[in-house]
């Protein structure tokens, strides 16, 4: 069974690399274009003498690691893509569980970017004076829980798509809106105003990339975040699995 999933992941890698490495460059450039201004915002704030709950070094590491592992921080699978080529429909016709197919395919799609963008950027971090090593080894279970929760949310939002008569664009908007702020991947929760940092970790999206990144740079304690991540993983996976079971027979696809 594992070999079948490996084959799916391999196909996803090939699919991503099919046009050649050149086609991956626009994505890499866009990631860099987005990364640089965010990093300079932290530097600008530091130079202005503002005092925050996180040091500039922590903020830079936070943003940098987020850019390196962006695909894993907020998981995006083919389920949340615009389904014009019936990719989601095809999965129901194959002799493998849909959950496994989605996960192996997505992991396969991550590999080229991890090798060609994240790895060199990781090695280049010391040259840019960015602390790249994690402050604690708890980041490993935290990353696993964060990615796992990301997949659970994907299935949950897929059910929303099905219930909204396949308007995948709408689900995409809702999902992007919620995750971009509440995942804490762009602006760390710790430096939010109005005491938001005290409660925002506890909402379900906070256990995505934001929790992992906070542990990575040492701005939060594992004893505080890991139990919350575990809790949301259990809850969201149960809801996603049950709702997916109920929703999948309503699924239709007209192409486009």
């Amino acid at each position: 069974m594992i070999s079948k999933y490996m084959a799916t992941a391999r196909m996803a890698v090939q699919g991503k690399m099919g046009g050649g490495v050149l086609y991956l460059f626009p994505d890499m450039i866009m990631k860099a274009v987005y990364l640089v201004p965010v990093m300079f915002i932290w530097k600008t704030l530091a130079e202005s003498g503002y005092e925050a709950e996180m040091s500039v070094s922590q903020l830079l590491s936070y943003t940098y690691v987020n850019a390196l592992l962006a695909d894993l921080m907020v998981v995006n699978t083919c389920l949340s893509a615009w389904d014009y080529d019936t990719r989601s429909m095809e999965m129901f016709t194959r002799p493998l569980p849909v959950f496994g197919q989605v996960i192996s395919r997505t992991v396969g799609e991550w590999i080229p970017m991890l090798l060609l963008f994240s790895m060199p950027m990781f090695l280049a971090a010391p040259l840019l004076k960015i602390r790249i090593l994690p402050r604690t080894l708890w980041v490993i279970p935290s990353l696993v829980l964060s990615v796992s929760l990301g997949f659970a949310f994907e299935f949950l939002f897929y059910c929303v798509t099905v219930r909204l008569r396949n308007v995948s664009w709408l689900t995409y908007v809702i999902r992007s809106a919620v995750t971009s702020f509440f995942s804490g991947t762009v602006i760390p929760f710790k430096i939010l105003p109005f005491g938001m940092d005290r409660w925002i970790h506890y909402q379900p999206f906070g256990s995505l990339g934001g929790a992992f990144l906070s542990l990575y740079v040492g701005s939060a304690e594992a004893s505080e975040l890991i139990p919350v991540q575990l809790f949301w993983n259990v809850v969201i996976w149960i809801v996603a699995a049950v709702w997916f079971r109920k929703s999948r027979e309503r699924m239709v696809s007209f192409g486009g």
Partner: protein
Amino acid sequence: MVDKRKRKRFYGIKRYFQLLKIYARMDLASLMRDGKFMAIVIIADIVSNISSISGIFLLAWKFGGIGGMDRFEVLFMLAYGNIVMGFLNMMGGCNALFPSRIIGRGQWEHMFIMPVPYAVQLTVGIFPFTGSSSFLSGIGMLWVAVCHMETVMPWWWPGMLILQLIISMVIVVAFSYMFSSLAFYAPVQCEEISSVVVYSMERTMTFPLSGMPMYIRYPLLTIFPAGLMAWFPTMILLGKAATLEGIYPAIFALLISLTATYYFRKGFRYYVKKGINRYVSGGHRS
């Protein structure tokens, strides 16, 4: 002869507004037919907009501003960007803002048989009822920002604001069309190139570039002009840019429009010879 030409032009303008009205009516019909569903769409749109700018605004609030811009100047900048993108999304409902989708899907050929010019076909597809939430929330935020700013605006300021908004929109559209020219040559690979470019600009425009070094600022005002979508016009409107700098966005808009026109026409000439065949027999795209 002159009379006939005048009559034809008048008919063209009349037809344009008739088509706008038809699209607006269809949009209203979609809202009325399923109000609950469309309410979800509108709320999702509003939440999406607020969410996309809230991070930077909360930062500005927490630190009393960013890089020499105070809280409400940052809000003004974010609102300005929202108006630019909100208006374009409202007016370009039928992928007019993302022409690489039309080209890549082989749908430009459908436009050949329509009895109105391409420009009319692309600009009449408006969604004034269901697609205006971003535009309206931008106006609301702009109003709040202006009310809280200490700067006294001169009488001609609203005109200047509208002019800068138009220039910013021209830049976004021209940039999108310039990159979309690639879809004429590689329709499958470049179908979404315009959305990648526009969405990346939309995300990057939220950064206040004040206080950033020149080597960051200049590329974002030239090679990848996200800075011209909100930050630089804000500087001009708040009187924080030199007089000569004030005409830079207009010059850039002109140059980028001419470049986009050149490449788009070049790509189009290639397309009319080669064509695009994307659809498989099942009706789905290859």
